[in-house]
Each structure stands twice: as structure tokens, then as C-alpha cells.
């Protein structure tokens, strides 16, 4: 796994210049936080890496996103294959309206996997990796909606892990969760970075401080500062970064 590289990224939604000349390299097997006030472009930036912005009307991109040295917006790129390598966890837990088992198995079924014992074992290992197995192992046939919010979010992570991604994008994954569920989720994220590259958008400064190795601060569509989390929180070079992190604006 190489670095994820964004080169001279400009994004427009119609006339709205949402991202302006952003270049950034994301280290493999680390947690990278994207922070900044609402509307600063951090979610747009995150969604570039699995091409989820493609569905937005009048979305326009200039620049390159390189994953394993391939420009994912280049010609001949298969978005379905890309998304198997780059998984995503959303803001609100969004399990499918099916059983816990089928939620995790979905990614395998759409790849044409039919072997029941293989699917069984991947479902089990994914739920274990997402630290949900012990809570659900007797109830795999139960509806995913019977789980609590925090469990649902970990189920969504398990579902993502089942297709064996290299990168996991998380768009404010804890914003709908209570403090206990949030802390479980944060422990899980730290655990997952051993095997996956993780990029997380968060509004929660403490969270960025607790779990991420590197932090990027976005403001008004620009990448203002990007450094190790420690430096960003203790000795930011930019006054705006300092003001945002200390809560003076945001």
C-alpha cells in the first residue's frame, strides 16, 4: 500500500468553488483526520477518494487522486473495483433493512461469491474485526435495526471490512453516537489502522486528537495546514488553525 496522493485538486459544484488547489499526501496505515468548520470542503475531499461525488449534479473536478500510483479519475478506471479497495463508513449508521448476517454478506454476494461456508467465515471474521461478534453471534438472523446506534455503526464497519479494502474513509462516523459507543468506535479505529489506511472527517477536536496520527485543517475550500496531530494541536504554524483548534471560531 502506497500513499494516497491528491494533486492540485479543484472541485466545483456549479459556480461554487468547493475545493481550491488542495494537494495532500496521506500516509498508509495511519489515521488521518480532516477537520474544519461546516462547509469547508472536508467531506467533499473525503468523498473524492471513492468517487462518491460523481452522483452529485454539476460536480466538476480538476486535478488527480492517485491510489497505488493510479489516477482514479483517469480513463478506464472501474469505480466498482475502486470501491472494493476504498471502503466508506457514513455519518449516520445506514445498515440495509435486512439481517445482520446479510448486511455483512452483501459485499460478497455482489461479487458473485456463493460458497456458504466461505461467506460464513468472512462474516464471522469481519464481525470479530469490528468487535461486534460477541454481541451478535447468537442473533445473526435478526434485523440490523434491532441493534443500537453504536452497534449499527460497527456493523457498517464490519460490512466494509468484509470486502477487504485497503483504505477506509469515515465521514463523521461518531456524530450520531452516545459517548460510550463513541469511545468503543474510537478504540476500534485505532486497532484497525494496523491493517488499513484510515481517513476520518470529524467535528470533534478531542476525537481528532485522541485517535489520529496526522491532522489536516480545511477552511473555505482550502487546505490551511497539514501536519502530525501533535504539532497541529500543540504548535500550529497558522493562526487560523490555532483559533479553530482552541475553539475560538468554528
Amino acid at each position, binding site marked *: 500500500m502506497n500513499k494516497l496522493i491528491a494533486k492540485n485538486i479543484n472541485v466545483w459544484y456549479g459556480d461554487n468553488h468547493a475545493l481550491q488547489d488542495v494537494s495532500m499526501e496521506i500516509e498508509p496505515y495511519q489515521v488521518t483526520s480532516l477537520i474544519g468548520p461546516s462547509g469547508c470542503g472536508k467531506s467533499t475531499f473525503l468523498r473524492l477518494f*471513492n468517487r*462518491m461525488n460523481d*452522483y452529485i*449534479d454539476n460536480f466538476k473536478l480538476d486535478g488527480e487522486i492517485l491510489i497505488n500510483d493510479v489516477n482514479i479519475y483517469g480513463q478506464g478506471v472501474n469505480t*466498482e*473495483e*475502486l*470501491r*472494493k479497495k476504498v*471502503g*466508506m463508513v*457514513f455519518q*449516520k449508521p*445506514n*445498515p*440495509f*433493512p435486512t439481517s445482520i448476517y446479510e448486511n455483512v454478506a*452483501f*459485499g460478497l*454476494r*455482489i*461479487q458473485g461469491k456463493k460458497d456458504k461456508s466461505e461467506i460464513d467465515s468472512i462474516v464471522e471474521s469481519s464481525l470479530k474485526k469490528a468487535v461486534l461478534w460477541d454481541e451478535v453471534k447468537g442473533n445473526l438472523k435478526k*434485523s440490523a*435495526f434491532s441493534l443500537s446506534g453504536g452497534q449499527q455503526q460497527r456493523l*457498517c464497519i464490519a*460490512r*466494509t471490512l468484509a*470486502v477487504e479494502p485497503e483504505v477506509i474513509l469515515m465521514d463523521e462516523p461518531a456524530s450520531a453516537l452516545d459517548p460510550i459507543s463513541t469511545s468503543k468506535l474510537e478504540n476500534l479505529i485505532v486497532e484497525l489502522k494496523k491493517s488499513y489506511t484510515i481517513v476520518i472527517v470529524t467535528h470533534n477536536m478531542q476525537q481528532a486528537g485522541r485517535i489520529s496520527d496526522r491532522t489536516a485543517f480545511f477552511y473555505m475550500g482550502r487546505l490551511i495546514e497539514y501536519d502530525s496531530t501533535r504539532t497541529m494541536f500543540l504548535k500550529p504554524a497558522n493562526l487560523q488553525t490555532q483559533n479553530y483548534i482552541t475553539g475560538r471560531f468554528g
Partner: protein
Amino acid sequence: MNNTKKNRLKDSVFKYYGIMSTFIGLIMLAVFIIIILQTGLSRLNLDFITSLPSRFPERAGIYTALMGTAWMLMLTIIFSVTLGVSAGIYLEEYAKKGLFSRLLEINISNLVGVPSVIYGILGLAFFNRALGLGGSLLAGSLTLSLLIIPVIIVTTRESLKAVPKTIKEAAYALGATKWQTISRQQLPAASGSIVTGVILALARAIGEAAPLIVVGALVYVPFAPQSPLDDYTVLPIQIFNWTSRPQADFQVNASAGIIVLLFITFLMNGVSIYLRNKWQKKVKW
């Protein structure tokens, strides 16, 4: 009188007006059903359902009409569901949003309000004559399908729209193609309300007589249809036929036929309500 009092008065006037309107509808329906039951119930027995038509009222039955309605229902389901649901999926998920799709949308919504006999005339010109299907079940069911396809398209689109976008995003993010997302997530999630809408549309279709008279459903068919190309009659037309006879005994037969037809439509409506409740309980976002 001050303003508050005036508003209160308006409020209660409208309340009683509403109650009255509701009761007028209900009373009319109740009177209708009571009269039908009084006249027809005595004639309703197994013989009535299994007998072929006859010029003697006491021997005449609805067997051929019932079989015709069953065939009609089956064929109409096949044509209208495949075409209507596919068109609904296309318009909601694939069609580029633009002037053309807007025009199409407005037209389809307007088609829902076109009188059914107009569809009959279209069916007569196109299916009976141009395609040479004559007065067959096939021509009749295609005509009824035309009648309810706009309803099914609208229902399908509304049902798909009601599935949260987050489900779609989740499937895409796992590497699902558009069709996999539609067929494995959106359609199953929407199927409850689609099925409900389809059943209601079909319940309307099987009560139709006007378009079928135009496309050549016969008033007298001695045998039950054996294939889609056979001549046929259906319950509403059989009833219509009996009511226009001078003999009083045929009026009794008509009432009995109406009871059977009402039973079928109530049953279909009941099933659709049952399914709607069941799915609503199962899927909550």
C-alpha cells in the same frame, strides 16, 4: 361577535359539514350493499358460480365470466407489472433529469386521469385491428394494462423515492453496480408499497366494463376461455348484460354477480392493506 367566537363557529360548522359529507357517502354505500344483498344473496350458491350462462335465469351462472376475469387478471398482471415497474425504475433511476423526462412525467401523470373508455378505443384501433388480435383475451388484457400502467409507473417511482438515499450510498460504497443496487436493495425495500399500489390498480382494472365492451368482450360466451386468444366475457360485462334483460329473475342474477365482484375487489383491497401494514412494520428507517 368577536373574532375568536367567529373562528370557533367556523370551526364547528366545518366539523359538522365534514361529518355530514362522510355520512352521506357511507349511507349511500350501505343502502347499495343492503339492496344488493337482499336481492342477490338468495341466488348465491355453488351452482351459480359453476354454471354456464343460459337463457333461463334460474339455470344461468357466472362460470365463464369468472374464468374470463381470472384470465384477464393474470394476463394483465403479467403485462402491466413488467412494463409499468420497469418504466418506473427507468424514469426514477436511469433517465437523465431534463426537459424530456419532465415532459414524460407530466404526460404519465395526466394519463392516470384519462377516462377508461378512451383506452378502449385505443385498444380497438391498435390491438384488435392493427395487430389483428380481434376480440381476444390478449387484446382485452393489453388494453386494461394500458389503463393501469401509468398508475403502476407513478407508484413504482414514489416507492423508490421513499427508500432512503443512504441505502443507495451504502451499496455503491461496497462496490455494487447500479443494477445490483436497484435489484438487491432498493427494489426489495420498495416492494411493499409497489405491490400495494399494483393490487389497488388491478382491483380497479377488474371492475372495468367500458373499455372491454369497446374492445369486444362478448356478452354471451358459452364456454370458459382456454387460451389467451379465445373470446371471453368478464364479470362486469356479465352483470351489465343481465341488468339490461327485461325478466326480473335476471336482475336477481345481476345482484348475485355484483356480490361476487364486490367480494373480489374487497379481498384485493384487504390484501393490499394487509401487505402495507406488514411491510411498514418490518422496514423502518
